[in-house]
């Protein structure tokens, strides 16, 4: 079991939990958190390199690094792991954000130990989810990732944190209620006595009548986490109240669980229904894209703006997935990566600004460029990434999605592609609005003049993220080919892609 590298994505966080439990001082806690996340990052980079090496050497199979360990033998539930290009991209994203998140919560207060305990527990869920290919374990990890949010927001959050934490938890659990039913339905109706995604997809044996029933539930279930309209309202409140690292991890990684799940479970396993019912969700996600963007235009709280922008961007992910073609899906995955990094960057910066000014209301701030140039420049870069400036990650992802979506000839797809394209303008509006009000112009509040610029750990956090954002933006082909390794597998021929 321990010869499989993937297992260590769960083992390392577990060791980190132990380490944290034994920690006695802030220094210990930081050491554990940073060392652990560095190990995870190193491991994921190694995995990336090794994976590409294996593929280059002609490794076949939809997933590599497969491992199966029977868990509940009676139900044939297994601890099955395996990764393809998409999972690797997501794992890489998660470890980067975990690392930067650890830096961003360098001075977390109160209860630092507990904070990191929950954060790491959350990351166990995230990593576990991405390496699993067994529906049950996947779902289990999915829920493991959800619940620490309640405490993380509730204890360390700001504002109406109790309300928001509760709303977020309940809505996400609501999604997972649908999801659980759908998973059980998939298991029984596939008739394979297997929870393994690959087996089920390969057999494609779920009766069509059942797919009509199970697909929407699975999609909605994951869609809630992916902030699909109209199930997105947890997102603004939740993000607004969450502490920095949690917002980063949640918007950066957790929301990606939704998109990934929609792709890996709903569409992968039930291609027939996906084809038949995609239009419903296309409409919903198309609305998400524009709706989130429009809503963001009038918000005054920085985190609300970003949360609505996440609704818009994550809507684009689901939107692209539903196009059911390779290009759009590649774009969706790139968008997940891109949005994950850039939104984490945003939230990190907002947290840092908030930590200094103690307000997130853009009407009360202004001219921060003069006061904290480093953070301000980073914010502008994040904004540029968000509005799709070439050279940063947002552009490649969005363009891949648009080009991919436009290859679908149905009128509905066309119309919604064009509507989704409109989001690039609206995004520009709200990003520039914030940049203009917050960073540029004269200094609004005299007291802000005494504030300081970023500290070294904050710089580490933001610079790492910016480098990643720029790397994707400048060398998209590398990531594109990584993701493409997935679609070249046989399994997609079954789906008809």
């Amino acid at each position: 079991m321990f010869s499989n590298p993937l297992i260590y994505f769960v083992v390392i966080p577990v060791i980190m939990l132990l380490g944290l439990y034994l920690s006695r001082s802030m220094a210990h806690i930081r050491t554990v958190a940073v060392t652990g996340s560095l190990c995870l990052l190193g491991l994921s980079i190694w995995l990336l390199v090794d994976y590409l090496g294996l593929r280059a050497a002609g490794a076949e199979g939809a997933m590599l690094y497969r491992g199966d360990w029977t868990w509940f033998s009676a139900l044939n539930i297994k601890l099955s792991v395996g990764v393809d290009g998409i999972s690797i991209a997501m794992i890489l994203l998660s470890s980067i954000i975990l690392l930067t998140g650890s830096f961003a919560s360098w001075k977390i207060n109160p209860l630092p130990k507990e904070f990191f305990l929950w954060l790491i527990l959350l990351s166990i869920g995230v990593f576990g989810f991405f390496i699993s290919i067994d529906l049950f374990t996947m779902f289990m990890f999915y829920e493991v990732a959800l619940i620490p949010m309640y405490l993380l927001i509730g204890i360390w959050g700001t504002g109406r944190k109790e309300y928001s934490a509760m709303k977020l938890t309940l809505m996400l659990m609501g999604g997972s209620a649908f999801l659980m039913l759908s998973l059980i339905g998939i298991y029984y109706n596939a008739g394979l006595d297997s929870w393994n995604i690959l087996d089920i997809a390969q057999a494609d044996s779920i009766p069509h009548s059942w797919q009509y029933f199970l697909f929407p539930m699975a999609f909605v279930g994951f869609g809630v986490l992916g902030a699909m309209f109209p199930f997105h309202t947890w997102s603004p409140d939740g993000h607004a109240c969450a502490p920095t690292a949690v917002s980063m991890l949640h918007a950066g990684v957790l929301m990606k669980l939704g998109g990934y799940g929609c792709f890996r479970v709903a569409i992968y396993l039930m291609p027939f229904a996906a084809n038949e019912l995609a239009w419903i969700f296309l409409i919903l996600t198309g609305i998400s894209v524009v709706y989130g963007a429009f809503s963001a235009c009038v918000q005054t709280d920085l985190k609300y703006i970003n949360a609505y922008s996440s609704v818009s961007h994550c809507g684009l992910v689901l939107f692209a997935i539903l196009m059911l073609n390779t290009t759009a899906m590649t774009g969706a995955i790139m968008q997940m990566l891109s949005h994950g990094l850039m939104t984490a960057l945003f939230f990190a910066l907002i947290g840092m600004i908030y930590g200094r000014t103690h307000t997130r209301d853009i009407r009360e701030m202004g001219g921060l460029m003069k006061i904290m140039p480093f953070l301000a420049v980073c914010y502008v870069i994040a904004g540029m990434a968000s509005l799709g400036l070439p050279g940063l990650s947002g552009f490649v992802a969005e363009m891949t999605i648009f080009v991919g979506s436009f290859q679908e000839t149905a009128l509905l797809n066309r119309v919604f592609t064009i509507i989704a394209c409109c989001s690039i303008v609206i995004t520009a509006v709200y990003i520039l609005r914030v940049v203009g009000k917050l960073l540029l112009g004269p200094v609004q509040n005299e007291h802000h003049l005494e504030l300081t610029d970023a500290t070294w750990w904050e710089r580490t956090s933001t610079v790492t993220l910016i480098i990643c954002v720029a790397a994707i933006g400048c060398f998209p082909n590398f990531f594109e080919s990584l993701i493409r390794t997935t679609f070249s597998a046989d399994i997609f021929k079954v789906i008809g892609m």
Partner: protein
Amino acid sequence: MDYSQFLAMKQEIALLAIFLIVFLYDTFMPKKVLTGLSGITTILFAAFTLAGFGLMCGHTESAFAGMYVTSPVIATIKNILNVGVLIVLIQSASWNNSETQSTRRGEFYELLLVTLFGMYLMISARHFLLFVIGLECASLPLAAMVAFDKHKYESHEAAVKYMLTAVFSSAIFMMGLSYVYLLTGSLYFDTIASSVGCLDAQPLLIVALAFVIAGVGFKLSLVPFHLWTADVYQGAPTAVTSYLSVISKGSAAFAFMVILAHCFGSVYSAVWEWMLYGLIILTITVGNLFALRQNNMKRFLAFSSISQAGYIMLGIIGNNAMGMASLMFYILVYIFSNLAAFGVIQAIENKTGKLDMSDYRNLYKSNPHLAFVMMLAMFSLAGIPPFAGFFSKFFIFTGALSGTTSVALYVLVLIALINTIISLYYYLMVVKSMFLSTEDPIIETFRSSCADRIGMWICTAGVIALGLVSYFYNSILTLCQNSGLLNAIV
């Protein structure tokens, strides 16, 4: 008469032996050594529990012309209950050793053992006469236990309510039985099962079945037969409440399953599937809705246990081996989770007398370990992984849907799942008051007694390990799939 048949009743006899020892000890030993009673009982019971595990690999035996049956599955459910009782015993030790209990210590143990004996009979009975005896044996002493807090008015009121409704319920139950007898001419489960198959769904049978379900549903506190639950749980001493909520409920659930699946298995889809369908929805929803606004922890857990009963019933409605195994597993997990919660409540109540959720505010600051155990219990009850509650919920749903293509059952499970959101809300309310509050804690820092801590450790270990370690569920399912009972069902 062949007296060797009594040998089939090994667990019952051993239990009676313990009862006798406790009784004799309590009666004849000098006053000053009576404080050791709790220790002795617990140790004896622990030994008995351990020994009970040996029976799980036995084979099916019956006695008294088939009125009594024992099998590995039955031994298993009894062992599960034993474990629960053992924890209850450990947790009640400090309460029992307190000054107020000094004169009644023995009675508590004696009554408790007798009710457990009654539950054994309920589980093993394959004839309604034995079943009724077991039922009454399990409920009458409980009334006395509920009334145990002599100085508290609530205790008496709770006992009165319990008593009156229990007797009423058993009257209804027996009325139902008399109609079953009228229709089938026998009170043997086997005979009833075979005759009911030819009866079709007559109105009289349906009414009789409704009465039988009402009677057992009373013990399980299914809505609308549940109304006594909250009052009694609140009024009874906490040790009794925890006993009532897990052991009594667990045994009734299993017995209920035997009656429905075995006796009335042939009218499953015609009659009781739909009865249960409605009851489950009502039970889960109403229990949840009431739990939403409770402040008293015991009352809160009473309503939570009502809705949990609804989930347990999902194991029956599927009418298959997996449902049966899931039900047993659910009971096991439920015992651990609920007792963890009750352990904390009891520890706090013994030290401070505080019972309200609002008193628990910022408990994490003053008593982090208690708060942590409570949180685990709440998460487990709510079905959050990686705690055992998640697995039991998942398996109970899997069980309910196993082998079915009925969309109605999927809808039922969906309703149950949506209800988990409501339940998550109120479980999180407890967590919220313990962790999220920033005001100063009301409950001061204290050190709970050794026994309390052992109890909580056991529960915590169970809550974490029962799900993650697949051995438990696997072995239960294997047992169920091999059991004779199942053959009757399928």
